[in-house]
């Protein structure tokens, strides 16, 4: 009897252990205490944001959370739409006039006029050099509700550049931790790297905002996001684990939204590495990327193999060269680059080739792609040391102790190629982490920047992309689908193709 009691006394202990083990999960999920009388939504996003300053935040949190807005917006057909600017005109592509809405107020009650917009744009350029480099603004002038922008040279794509969340308009009284915007929601609290809370802005220019409050939680753990939607502690989650797709599809209480995104996962090469300066070496690494396995197995079909930076159907995509996984072709390319081949292994002056490959966790598939590439390279005797970093943009911008990096970005957020080409390949480009200095390519991009006629722009973009493609400046791997899981309680959710807009005035909950 005593033994029985002793044995059964273990049961509560085990139950307690299970509960304790589960408790961390509860912590990882948002505290979605939905007040019954108010409409509240909790959204889980996969990338942490440590700042909410829209002018410097690379995660665009303020715009995504509906706190701040830009002069111009973009819809899901990649067409420009008026936002803070009611309309805009330019006759020569260099002198632009933007008409600011009359009925617009910041969340602190101040009315928005052209002078306030001018202040905000000047602040954005001062705070963020990449905004300054991208906008090419020579002069800003304001008169009542009319804002005049003069660019350094004809810049027909200026309105589409003003869609970028880093150009969001905020009041002068804003601080880096408390931006005062014009969006449907005003910020109530922000915990860096953890979550932000917003409340409805009653005087929103776009009309009545349906939700009362919303919480946006940052959680890099795909499993935790999945459990959160299952436990109903979140209403919308981004990027659930790929393996859970089948299970989620069978759940009648949720909707699974999977769209081909404008994002491209890519392999960056550091041009300061003498081996990687050789085109044949880059070509060889490209041949070691097994795109089909990545899309079919690793991504369970939730991605499209990428042959170039933009989706193949984009009007500015050229006919890309065919990319196939071919270790033999890789071997030949290494040989063509002057390396020795012995017993199928590549070496340089008798020593094996070794490279450092950077990756990061917030896109769960990137470390796996890194390991796949590492395994394929090791078959040729090439050593890839994988290093995982927390903030890839910050790391690439500051450090030069890497050779290759797996990176992911939205390459054509505004349906135009020039943003990516300028940012990633011009010597002063904000995303030119590889240190590309290609005079021929730069001259094509410069010509593209000055061209106004759409057809000519497409032709020049194709020329630039073909150059990148032929010289293997980067290896483009996949276009992952944008997967969002939405509770059926949520109404009017639209998965933004550009990934710029999450919390909108129409978003509602039953």
């Amino acid at each position, binding site marked *: 009897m005593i033994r029985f009691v002793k044995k059964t006394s273990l049961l509560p202990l085990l139950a307690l252990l299970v509960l304790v083990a589960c408790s961390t999960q509860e912590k990882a999920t948002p505290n979605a205490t939905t007040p019954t009388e108010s409409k509240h939504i909790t959204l889980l996003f996969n990338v942490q944001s440590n700042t909410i300053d829209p002018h410097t935040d690379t995660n665009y949190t303020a715009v995504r959370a509906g706190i701040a807005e830009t002069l111009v917006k973009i819809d899901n057909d990649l067409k420009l739409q008026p936002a803070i600017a009611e309309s805009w005109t330019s006759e020569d592509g260099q002198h632009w006039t933007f008409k600011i809405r009359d009925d617009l107020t910041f969340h602190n009650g101040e009315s928005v006029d052209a002078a306030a917009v001018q202040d905000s744009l000047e602040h954005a350029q001062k705070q963020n050099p990449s905004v300054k480099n991208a906008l090419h603004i020579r002069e800003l002038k304001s008169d009542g509700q009319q804002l005049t922008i003069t660019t350094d040279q004809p810049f027909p794509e200026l309105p589409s550049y003003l869609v970028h969340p880093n150009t969001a308009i905020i009041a002068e009284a804003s601080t880096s931790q408390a931006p005062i915007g014009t969006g449907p929601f005003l910020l109530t609290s922000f915990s860096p790297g953890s979550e932000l809370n917003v409340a409805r802005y009653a005087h929103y220019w776009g009309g009545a905002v349906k939700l009362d409050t919303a919480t946006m939680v940052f959680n890099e753990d795909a499993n935790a996001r999945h*459990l959160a939607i299952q436990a109903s502690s979140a209403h919308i989650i981004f990027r659930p684990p790929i393996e859970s797709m089948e299970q989620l599809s069978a759940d009648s209480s949720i909707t699974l939204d999977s769209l081909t995104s404008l994002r491209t996962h890519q392999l960056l090469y550091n041009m300061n590495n003498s081996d990687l300066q050789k085109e044949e070496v880059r070509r060889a690494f490209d041949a070691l990327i097994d795109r089909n396995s990545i899309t079919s197995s690793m991504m369970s079909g939730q991605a499209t193999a990428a042959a170039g930076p933009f989706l193949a159907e984009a009007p500015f995509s050229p006919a890309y060269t065919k990319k196939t996984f071919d270790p033999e072709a890789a071997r030949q390319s290494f040989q063509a680059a002057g390396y020795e081949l012995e017993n199928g292994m590549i070496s340089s002056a008798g020593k094996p080739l070794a490279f450092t490959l950077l990756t990061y966790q917030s896109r769960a598939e990137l470390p796996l792609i890194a*390991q796949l590439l*590492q395994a394929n390279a090791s078959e040729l005797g090439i050593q890839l040391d994988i290093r995982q970093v927390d903030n890839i943009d910050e790391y690439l911008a500051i450090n030069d102790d890497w050779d290759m990096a797996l990176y992911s970005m939205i390459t054509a957020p505004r349906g135009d190629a020039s943003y990516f080409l300028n940012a990633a390949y011009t010597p002063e480009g904000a995303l030119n982490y590889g240190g590309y200095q290609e005079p021929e390519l730069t001259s094509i991009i410069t010509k593209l920047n000055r061209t106004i006629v759409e057809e000519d722009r497409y032709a020049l973009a194709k020329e630039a992309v073909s150059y990148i493609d032929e010289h293997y400046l980067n290896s483009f791997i996949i276009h992952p689908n944008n997967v969002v899981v939405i509770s059926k309680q949520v109404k009017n959710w639209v998965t933004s193709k550009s990934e710029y807009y999450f919390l909108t005035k129409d978003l509602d909950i039953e």
Partner: protein
Amino acid sequence: MRSTAALKQQSGKRRIKYTTLLLFVLVIMVIIMTPEITPQDANKLIIGNRLLGPSSEHLLGTDHLGRDLLSRMIAGVRTTVGTSLLILSISMVIGVTLGLLTGFLGGLYDRMFKRIVDAFMTLPDYIFAIVLSGLLGPGFLNLLFAVIAVKWVGYARLVRSTVLQEKEKDYIKLAELAGVPALRIVKKHLLPRVMGNVFVLAALDLGKIILIIASLSYLGLGPQPPTAEWGSMLNEGRVYFNTAPHLMLAPGIAIMITVLIANICGDRLRDKLDVRMKKGA
């Protein structure tokens, strides 16, 4: 005459003792014979085979990159337990050498050494190792350095205190009077005297070191991919906990059992070697 219950208890204890000893020997043999007994290449990646369940070909199934889980578990013994034993040995060598020298030489050396040791002892093992690893960056050698940096102090302190007691005893004083060189006194008389205590501490430390290594690797600060290490395997399997729980369960259970074995062996060794315990018994 002893009661039946006492006899049963004693036989149970003996059973546990021999089972743990057997398991410990098994772990050591796995470390030595890893390449011979690994059924498949632990790093061979077949992406089409990812997340397979247990089968005759893959007894524990495959991981998220199609690698044989059993092979990775076996390879992980060498990385996790082997590294722990290596760290333990290096920490012992450093700690014992410094403890013997400073304790025996005394004076300024000893005072300086005591201050350094005190400074190290104020820092909690885990936190100091995590901070150090974080500063040094991920990697096997950095992990080694970080854990040794926190572990050598315990041995040095123990040896020094024993030497301070011993050197006041007559047999050491007589040896000094007889003109026996200092190094010989240390080697012949003091070293054998301290080693019993050192082995007891080491045996009790092994489990802790295994846990520190696994924890640091779980945080991504240990050996980097594709090296199989139980802590990092636990972290990799976390993402698939819902769909493939065996990816977490296998390394988790392995860590638990190994630490348990190390702790039981440590306790037994302490019972055998610790003179004070014996006297008290």
